[in-house]
């Protein structure tokens, strides 16, 4: 199974850009990379998903190098409300019943944004 590694925590200040990197050395060809945000006592919430290169939406960008062994979530101009745990998720279940990575979450990065 793929293993994902993220920094345990990061600190930032309001208005700064924050980059959180996830390492996934054993990523399989079919695997997508997805990032989620989680606030205390809530379920995770989808942020962004990609397969390769760069993906951007209204809240974040996702950078994936050519070898796809890592990915970086970029949050532009963070605010206090961005304080949360961020998870990367690697894998898929396309090969139903077969040997797949079966959706492996990282252990999460606690982002603390200060004023």
């Amino acid at each position, binding site marked *: 199974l793929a293993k994902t590694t993220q920094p345990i925590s990061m600190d930032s200040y309001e208005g700064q850009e924050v980059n959180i990197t996830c390492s996934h050395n054993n990523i399989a060809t079919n695997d997508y990379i997805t990032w989620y945000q989680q606030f205390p006592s*809530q*379920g*995770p919430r*989808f942020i962004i998903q990609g397969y390769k290169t760069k993906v951007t939406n209204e809240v974040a960008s996702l950078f994936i190098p050519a070898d796809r062994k890592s990915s970086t979530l970029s949050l532009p101009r963070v605010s206090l409300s961005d304080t949360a745990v961020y998870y990367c998720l690697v894998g898929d*279940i396309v090969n139903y*019943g077969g040997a797949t990575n*079966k*959706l*492996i979450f990282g252990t*999460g990065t606690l982002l603390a944004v200060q004023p």
Partner: protein
Amino acid sequence: DAGITQSPRYKITETGRQVTLMCHQTWSHSYMFWYRQDLGHGLRLIYYSAAADITDKGEVPDGYVVSRSKTENFPLTLESATRSQTSVYFCASSEEVIGEQFFGPGTRLTVL
């Protein structure tokens, strides 16, 4: 109301008892998932379902049983609860096999 709900939100039980956690979604999503969340481990997939009557194991399935007789429901049963199953359990659903998963609010289970 549309969405994904879990019940109960909190549950305390004793070792050896059977416990069923309920999950209900109103979107008619094909895919449903059960995760457990523990400190130091993040979220780990227990079971998932691709459609009614189709389920498969995730990373940590031992001690759990699932069923999916209807598209909207995906109950998780602990047949004989153990203290190591004390955790927060999240249910999720998605329309596509690869896509945004919508998570429920979670069930905090304590096994004494």
